[in-house]
């Protein structure tokens, strides 16, 4: 599995007057991986995606998608031939029927897969002759997803793909994403559904206030992030525990809770040197990693 980046940015910045929506973002999204992009609302996820697709121009920094410069309009246009994008809110042309919509979009992509189109039309039960503005939200979401899935892009970018889907729909969506990934499509999606991300993502990027705070494989996060709960015979000195890897310390009486992104063993050793009474280590789920990471900032 080659590890070239399908998306690579260097100090990408976007400011609107004095407000910086994206600050010095250096992102690297690997080929043939499923990468999740997490962040609070307004953290800069959509702005970043729009810069990658040439809809917004960066204020500073640079980036490439599939090796082509995002700031070069000609190159960016070529790249869009091989990138599928589903925006938040799954926008579609209300005045077109389902059939017209499919005909319109498929005309731009020679790699369109009629067999996948037919299968998804059948599975999603979309009425061909109905106008998009008459479809329910769930059906519109499915149609928007169909338009991306029936292609053979090198990169699929999705902004909150499960929004508007019921749990069955979400399960189906994840299965399709996994199938596409197995076919060689690199996937980059932003989501608020931490549970979904934990199941299918290979890699996680957490964005907060325009800056990249976490950029790691999910395996690494699972292996190294730990919460360590310690009880001492006295009030524990927080200063002793400011070791590298420790992100947050909370003390209450004789108890101390340490949130570490790595180096849990060093924390335990230090605790034992200080005659700790009880040590409890627990893994940290992605939701807590996310909440702790954005809280600190």
């Amino acid at each position, binding site marked *: *599995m080659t590890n070239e980046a399908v998306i690579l940015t260097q100090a990408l910045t976007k400011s609107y007057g004095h407000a910086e929506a994206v600050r010095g973002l250096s992102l690297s999204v690997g080929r*043939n*991986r*499923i990468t999740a992009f997490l962040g609070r609302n307004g953290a800069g996820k959509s702005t970043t995606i729009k810069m990658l697709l040439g809809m917004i121009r960066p204020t500073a920094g640079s980036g490439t998608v599939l090796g082509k410069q995002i700031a070069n309009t000609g190159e960016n246009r070529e790249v869009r031939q091989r990138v599928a994008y589903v925006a938040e809110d799954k926008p579609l042309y209300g005045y077109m029927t389902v059939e017209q919509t499919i005909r319109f979009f498929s005309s731009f992509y020679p790699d369109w897969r009629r067999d996948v189109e037919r299968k998804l039309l059948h599975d999603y039960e979309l009425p061909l002759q109905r106008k998009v503005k008459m479809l329910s939200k769930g059906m519109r979401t499915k149609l928007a997803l169909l338009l991306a899935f029936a292609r053979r892009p090198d990169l699929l970018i999705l902004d909150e793909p499960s929004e508007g889907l019921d749990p069955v729909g979400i*399960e189906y969506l*994840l*299965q399709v994403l*996994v*199938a596409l*990934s*197995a*076919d060689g499509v690199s996937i980059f999606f932003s989501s608020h559904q931490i*549970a979904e991300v*934990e*199941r*299918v*993502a*290979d890699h996680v990027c957490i964005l907060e206030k325009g800056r990249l705070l976490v950029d790691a494989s*999910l*395996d690494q996060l*699972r*292996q190294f*992030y*730990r919460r360590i709960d310690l009880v001492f015979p006295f009030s524990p000195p927080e200063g002793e525990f400011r070791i590298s890897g420790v992100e947050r310390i909370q003390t209450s009486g004789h108890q101390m809770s340490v949130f570490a992104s790595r180096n*849990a*063993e060093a924390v*335990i*050793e230090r605790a034992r040197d200080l005659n700790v009474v009880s*040590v*409890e*280590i*627990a*893994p*940290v*789920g*992605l939701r807590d990693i996310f909440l702790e990471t954005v809280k600190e900032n």
Partner: protein
Amino acid sequence: MFFKLTPTTGQPLYLQLMQQIRHGAETGALHDGDQLPGIRTLAEELVVSPNTVAKAYSELEHEGLLELRQGSGAFVCVKRRTRSLADQVQVARHRIRDLIERLREDGLLDEEIRRAFEAELLYPAEIVTRR
């Protein structure tokens, strides 16, 4: 064979899958020559990234438990080494059973016993020997 991967424990999914496949080979649920589903099929079934399945299969191939044949899939090879490993696991389980009985006699609840095991397991091996 049924696999169940839990994203919320502190263990990478590929390791969980590897363990469950090994467990299957040890307990006899998987026999020598059995075919495991292809990477794509298993990934879709478990709804996990194909990279997870691929990594698990690849590591098990290194260990000698699986044989990956181009185009046909992954086949289980239960060698003598694995069988003796299965025996070791049987012995270990007897020891653990005895320990759990003794802890229960001491008055510990099952939940407390489980948490104690989990906490100790999260200590990397080096710290344990240093003790």
